[in-house]
């Protein structure tokens, strides 16, 4: 394959039976919004800490119910706990949201390509998140905060449906106050008491406090949002070669064997989910790919 860019950081594959989940126990649960929750998990095999790279995902299994791909939302430098943040929308995630401390889930992973954090060093970073697209970006934010000095200006542009859909609000305050991350939030629909921005997330892009000529962008959200965010970033003069997006498709295996996640020639599970924008921009512009 000839691509203009290298695949984002590849991560070593775990050994063992590829379709058999490894049990993880729930140590804490946290309700983020009315329909979104975070599970804090710990491997039941103490000798095998869980390490991952920001942007990777796991196949998360609820005993006898099913398995779904969910990105990892925790700190890559904290190998003791594995965090998943999900919205209760399907059979598996609804069941997952009803689980509590001490319950056990199955984990296969981590899978997929990671965010290009090494490439982002020395650059400004703009992170654009739509809705449930914020959790897959949080590991990158943790990583950037830990090595804050190695990055230039860092700007998070976050769009939620309504003020009550905003994820991690208190945490975002900390990111803003203590870690020098510029956080801009907008909502699609306002509610009583909301004094912030109203409108789609792309309306925040002109506000981003970055140097377009030396910026790396990471975008996660619905496909249409990523498409328009990329176009808006291009308008600001950002080099398309420094824009990255994270794609989503149906997945049954996570390891390139089930065929479900194909996006043109790419298997989202192993070639992605993080892709350089240049590599997939033509496909992004087509419907029903």
């Amino acid at each position: 394959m000839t691509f203009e860019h290298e695949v984002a950081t590849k991560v070593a594959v775990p050994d063992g039976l590829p379709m058999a989940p490894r049990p993880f126990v729930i140590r804490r649960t946290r309700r983020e919004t009315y329909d979104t929750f975070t599970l804090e998990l710990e491997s039941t095999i103490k000798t095998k800490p869980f390490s991952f790279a920001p942007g990777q995902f796991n196949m998360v299994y609820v005993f006898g119910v099913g398995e779904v791909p969910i990105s990892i939302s925790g700190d890559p430098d904290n190998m003791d706990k594995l965090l998943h943040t999900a919205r209760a929308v399907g059979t598996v995630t609804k069941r997952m949201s009803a689980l509590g401390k001490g319950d056990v889930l199955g984990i296969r992973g981590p899978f997929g390509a990671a965010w290009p954090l090494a490439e982002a060093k020395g650059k400004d970073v703009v992170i654009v998140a739509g809705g449930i697209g914020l959790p897959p970006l949080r590991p990158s934010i943790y990583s950037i905060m830990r090595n804050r000095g190695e990055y230039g200006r860092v700007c998070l542009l976050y769009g939620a449906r309504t003020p009550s859909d905003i994820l991690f609000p208190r945490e975002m305050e900390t990111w803003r106050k203590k870690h020098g991350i510029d956080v801009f939030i907008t909502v699609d629909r306002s509610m009583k008491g909301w004094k912030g921005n109203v409108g789609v997330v792309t309306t925040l892009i002109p506000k981003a406090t970055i140097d377009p000529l030396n910026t790396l962008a990471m975008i996660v959200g619905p496909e249409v949002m990523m498409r328009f965010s990329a176009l808006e970033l291009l308008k600001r003069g950002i080099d398309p070669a420094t824009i990255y997006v994270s794609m989503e498709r149906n997945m049954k295996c996570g390891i390139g064997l089930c065929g479900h996640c194909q996006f043109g020639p790419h298997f989202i599970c192993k070639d992605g989910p993080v892709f350089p924008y240049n590599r997939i921009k033509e496909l992004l512009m087509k419907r029903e790919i």
Partner: protein
Amino acid sequence: MFQVAVTAMVYRIETAAVQSLIEVLHQQNYSVLGPTLRDGSIVYDELHDASDLPMGWTEEQRPGYYRIRKRNDEALFGFTLGPHSWKKFLFPSISKLFSASRNAKGFNVLKDKAEPKGGTKPLAFFGVRPCELHAIEIQDKVFASGDYKDPQYNNVRAQVFIVAVNCSHPAETCFCSSMGTGPGVEGQYDLALTEIIDEKQHFFLIEAGSPKGEQVLENIQHHPAEGNEVSKGEDVVRTAASNMKRTLDTRGIKELLYENAEHPEWEKVGARCLSCANCTLVCPTCFCNTVEDSTDLGGTEATRTRKWDSCFTLDFSYIHGGNIRTSTKARYRQWMTHKLASWIDQFGTSGCVGCGRCITWCPVGIDITDETRVIRDNNGSA
């Protein structure tokens, strides 16, 4: 492409030796699988002896049409291909991936039952057509050559003994010459047969393609073939090639299909396509699958089952909030573009071997060679 050693000796065996061949494979503990007549079609199943082969039968294939009929001779391989392919043995349509049991600490995966190792007998595929040999090699690339390998597939595949058969009678739906996959056997086989039959004679030519094959051959009666016998074998393949009418022009096919993702033909073929998934089930390379997780009634034992899936179902592309490929047009485009174009990017080979099954078994007779032609003839008309 892997080339057979040109020095491979060609031997002659009599038709009766086909029975010996099956017996020797049985003696070597193989479960012998091959073509047999059942329910009005030639399918692949257990061969107990040579009489299970569809002797004297052939078939007529056209778009959306398959009928078996009697030949006026006793050819053992006088047919082409039925609806089955060897993938059903290497990549079964339903298989258990693991079972798990609830315990005080949550659950544990039952390792002994997980992804069963080749506890069953090794398999001998008897009568593998050249296109199918290529199809197996293509599925090897999918299941046995990536970062992740499918343990079930590999366990079975590693032990397979392949008896290939050169093609003598291409069906009307065949186009292997275009895909470079036939009608002559090429690739990794253990033994290769060529059936020679006319009014005067009926015998087989046989070549060993591996030490395993040589060892089996030693156990059956065979003689070095004479020059004119060898050339008769070459004639069989040459005649088969010249009798093949259907073609698919593969020049620049990847770019052609990538650039024509919005071609109006997709709309037209989408209107004809029933989205029935037949083409993906009969295709010897289609590998898409889904998993089903279930439990027993008590909720203490859970199982994950893998099943063949098809990109023609609506469910295939489901993500929260909806399905990606809602139209039949998009699903046909996905299938054909994957088969002929993106497969090349993914696995370094076309996903099509020109066996023509998707044409024959399509209830409305959609023809992948016609669809390619229409797009090529109106290239860029999107």
